[in-house]
Every structure is written in C-alpha cells, then in structure tokens.
C-alpha cells in the first residue's frame, strides 16, 4: 500500500521522540541508581546496590514513601467520593444544564496549579480566611494550627486539584451506559436504588478505576503541595527526590528512589488496566 519511505517518515519521529526523551532518560536514571557519589562530590561509575540498601535501611526514606502513599490513598478516596456523585448527577439528572456544569468542572483545570495551591494557603493560614472567620464567629479563640503546614492541608489541596481528574473518566463511563439498560432495570421492577447498585455502578467501574489511578499516581508524585502547604510533617517522597538531586547532590540515591517509584506506578497502571478490562463489556 504505502511506500517504505512513507512508512519510515511516519514512524520515525515518534520513535526518535520516545527513545530520546523517554527510554534514554530512564536508562540513564537506572544506571545512576547503581553508581555513587565520592567524597569530592563527583559521580563514581562503580556498579553496586548500596543506594537500594540505603533506601531500605534509612527509616526516613521508606517511611516517607509510605506516608506519601497514605496521603495519595486519602486523596484518591476523597476525589472519588466527591467526583462520583458529581459525575452521576451530571450524566443522569443535569438535563440541559449538562454542558454548562461540565464546563464549570473543567474550568479549574485551566487555572495554574500554583495559583490554586496559594489560594489554599490564603484560606488555611493563621491569619487566613478560615481562621479569621472561625474567630470572628467565636467558634475558636486562637487560630487553628493544624489547618496549614500539615498532611491535612496537603490532602485537602491535592483533593481539590485532582478531583476533576477522577471526575472525567467516571463521567465518561457513565455517559457510555446505554440508557435503555436503566429503563430495562426499572421495567423489571428494580427501584432507582437497586438500579444504581446492580446496573449503573458495576458498569461505571472502569471509569472509577481509571479515575482512582489518575488521582493516586498524580498525587503520589506531587511535590508542590507538600512544599507549599505540607510543613515538616507533610513532606512527601518527591520532596526528598528533589532535594537529593538539588541541595544534597546525591543523584544516585535520588535515581534509586525515582526508579522504585517508577516501578510502583508502572505496577499500579498494569494492575488497574487489568481491572478495567475485567469490568468493561462492549
């Protein structure tokens, strides 16, 4: 059909792109994770597993990784709890306002991440909107300290930022459910509640899995929210990676942590894809 030159012209650019900007950096990172830093702050290209050993031995690394996963898990649950009802309402009950409401959900995505994170800082701080309000109505005497610079602030901000990411695939899955299935369920005597749990929810599971994966993976790797709002107790694994590549100048250890995260995320994506396949019918 097509000439070989045409085929090459079409396939080569993406191939080069993937190789240069994805495969090679990953390979390089993989190599770095086995190297080490000398006393004189140069990279020594001697192969060993010391970085991975350190990762397991030093508590702060794996504890931070676990805490990051715990934060990401909470963000995922809250995003789903907020995103699902919203998507369900929009898909099934919004009627003519559907498009408008959909746009309203999407618009925050156009606002810079930084602006939204700073907005929460303004709201949650000691002199912030929330504390001022609470004291004004005499609910509290002193500013609540746990609001800002805490895991709470990080979870809240990340939930706000990533809920649309959970919402979108759920909404898409709900939109794909043929409405005659809902009618068939009612026709067979199922109440709206039974219809939701027996037909609508099972058929929306691929969207829930995709949304959960988005929320979890994106918040697991986040480093701006913990940096701006997390304080010492809200540090996440990406902050450690950033400082290892920056101030600490320990690229090999940073690469080892990055590689572990990469494995975790790839494993998660693989697992969620299996789950989605298992629950999709068409």
């Amino acid at each position: 059909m097509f000439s070989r030159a045409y085929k090459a012209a079409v396939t080569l650019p993406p191939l080069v792109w993937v190789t240069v900007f994805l495969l090679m950096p990953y390979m390089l990172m993989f190599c770095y994770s086995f190297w080490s830093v000398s006393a004189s702050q140069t990279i020594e290209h001697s192969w060993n597993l010391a970085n991975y050993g350190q990762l397991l031995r030093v508590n702060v690394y794996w504890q931070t990784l676990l805490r990051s996963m715990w934060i990401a898990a909470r963000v995922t649950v809250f995003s789903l709890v907020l995103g699902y009802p919203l998507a369900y309402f929009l898909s099934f009950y919004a009627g003519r306002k559907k498009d408008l409401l959909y746009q309203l959900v999407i618009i925050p995505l156009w606002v810079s991440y930084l602006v939204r994170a700073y907005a929460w800082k303004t709201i949650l701080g000691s002199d912030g909107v929330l504390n001022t309000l609470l004291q004004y109505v005499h609910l509290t005497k002193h500013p609540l300290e746990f609001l800002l610079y805490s895991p709470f602030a990080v979870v809240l901000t990340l939930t706000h930022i990533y809920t649309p990411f959970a919402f979108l695939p759920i909404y898409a899955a709900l939109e794909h459910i043929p409405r005659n299935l809902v009618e068939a369920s009612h026709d067979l005597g199922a109440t709206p509640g039974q219809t939701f749990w027996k037909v609508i929810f099972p058929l929306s599971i691929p969207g829930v899995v995709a949304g959960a994966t988005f929320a979890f993976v994106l918040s697991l790797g986040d480093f701006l929210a913990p940096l701006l709002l997390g304080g010492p107790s809200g540090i996440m694994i990406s902050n450690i990676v950033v400082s290892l590549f920056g101030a600490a100048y320990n690229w090999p250890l940073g690469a080892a942590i990055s590689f572990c995260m990469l494995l975790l995320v790839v494993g998660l994506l693989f697992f969620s894809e299996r789950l989605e396949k298992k629950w999709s019918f068409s």
Partner: protein
Amino acid sequence: MMTASEIPMAAAGDGLGHATLLSIRNVAKRFGKNVVLRDISLDVAEGEFLTILGESGSGKTTLLRIIAGFETASAGEVWMGDERLDRQPPYRRRVNTVFQHYALFPHLTVEQNVAYGLRVAKRPEAEIASRVKEALDKVKMSAHAKSKPSKISGGQQQRIALARALVNRPRLLLLDEPLSALDANLRRQMQVELKSLQREVGISFIFVTHDQEEAMVMSDRIALLRSGELEQVATPREIYGRPATAYAAQFIGHTNLLKGEVRAGVVRCGVLTWPAALPDGPALFSLRPENIRLAAGTPAGAGMVRVRGKVLHQAFHGATELIRVDCGDGLVLVVRTPGSGGSLDEVELGFSPADAILVRESPERI
C-alpha cells in the same frame, strides 16, 4: 379528526369475549410544540395479541413507552383493571418490556439477566433457580445459561430478552420492534415462535412494528397509527377486507384507490359505473388487486362491473402476477391474478361492486 367512538372496534375487547386488561383513555403526548400523540383511546383484552402498526414517526413507540412508564402522557389516563397505571413509576407496573435492541445487562450472564426481576423482588433463591430454568427451557436457551450476552447471537439475545421479561409473569408484555434487528429468515421463524409462545403463556402482548406483514401474521387485532392518531383498530382480516380509510387501505397490502362521484345510487368513476346505496357526492373506494378478475371469455356474472383495457406492465411473482391495466380516461387498475399464462395485450376486467370498499379520505397531517 376521528374521535374514539368513531373508530371501528371488534366488539368489546378483542372479539374473543375476554375481559379488558388495559384501557388507554384519551392519551396525548407533546414534546414541546411537537404533538406526537393525540387523543388515543384503546382497550387491550386479556390474552390478546395486539399490534400497534405505524410508520416511523407515527408515535407507536411513544405510546408503548407511556404504557411502560418511561414517558408520561401530557393528557389522558392508562388503566389496568381498576388500577391507574400512568401514576405509577415503571418499577411498580406489572408490565414488562422486550426492548428493540434487547437491552440485556452486559455485565451479567444470561442466567443472571433472566433472574434479575426475581432477584430485585427478593424472591427465595430456590424459587428463582427453578423459574429461571423453566424460562430458559421455554425459549430453548438453557445451554447458554452461563454465557455473557456479548457471546451469543442476535436471535439468541432476543430469546433471552423474552425470557427475562416473561419470568416475572407480567400481566402485559410490551414488545418494541423486537424482530427488526434480525435477518429475514430468522425473523419469520421468530414470528411463529413468538405467536405460539404468546398462546401458550396466555399473557396479553402489545407488539409494536412498522412491518404490516408481520402485523398481519401475528396479531389478533391491529391498531393502525398514523401521525399520532389511530386510523383503524380491527382484526387483520377486517382491516384488510374493510379498510376504514384510504391510508389504511394503502398501508396494509396493495390497493386501487378509485375516486368517484355518486349520483342517484350510481357510482361513476371514469369509465366505470356501478350501483351503490350511497348519498350523492364525491366518494373514495378501495379495490384490492386480487378482487379484479381477468374476465375474457367468461360469461358476464350477475352485477359484475366490466371494463376493457390495455396492459401496461406485467410483473411475475411466482404464485401470482401483477398486471397494470390502462382502462382509458386516466384510470389505471392493478390486477393480481394467479398466473396469466403469457404476455397480454388487451384484457377484459371484471369485479363485484361489493369489493369496492368505501373509505374515508386520509388528509395530510403534519
């Protein structure tokens, strides 16, 4: 147009002497400014197979959806016995539907699909198992009980949809063009199966279709719907033999529409004249092609209307042959004969005045 009392009905109910099950009273439906149904009144008897026949856009599916509860009527009432049906949500109505594209739940097996209605009604598991098995046996699908709907053919999905509805023992089954997605052979086979299944279970069926042949083959009665109004409600034989309107005559089978003028007990229609006890004025008649005979050589029967004409076209259909004959004065008749034996040039035609059925005009509607 036509009010409910004017619509010819076969006795009360279905003519089989059964009690009325469902009563549709003066139902109308508007979507915004668009009037889809106007003033529909129709009774369905116990155990009756009633077909709602109409072209696409005639409102037949909307009427079915009002009975099922997926649409609310803009006016009128639907009663089942002494229970007002149209005020109930669909899940409280003892009515089940076989959907046009079956609407089987893709995440459930065939068996789970059939069990769905019983499960949500929280019947005991033992009862569910035996009734599901019975329903699957009835539609000859027991072998596929564990399959997912995507793994079985269209005809098989059709049967599962039927079993899923019937297992609930509804008082009324609604079928929304259930055979339209099947190929011609399977379709004919399913028509027969569906009809005999209906006889066996004794449940009233309301069957929606745009296919007049299907309606003729299966129904006890046909309700012909046109642009949101009932054109005629009658048995297939009656609606074919004595169509009430020009539209009914043309939609169901072929016909010759003769526009004539009655004067002093004689109809004059171009070169044709025949006696008829009708008031003076214009009149429209339907004359079925098979009621016109090639009369060459046969002795003139008492009261036969005879006319000579030139053959325009002959179409051989195997068992019968359709011949278009120009009788002069702009009158062209279509004649169906059981084989003419060869090509014809000039023919003499004859028909009995009793076969020229007076029909009402069907004015254009929006």
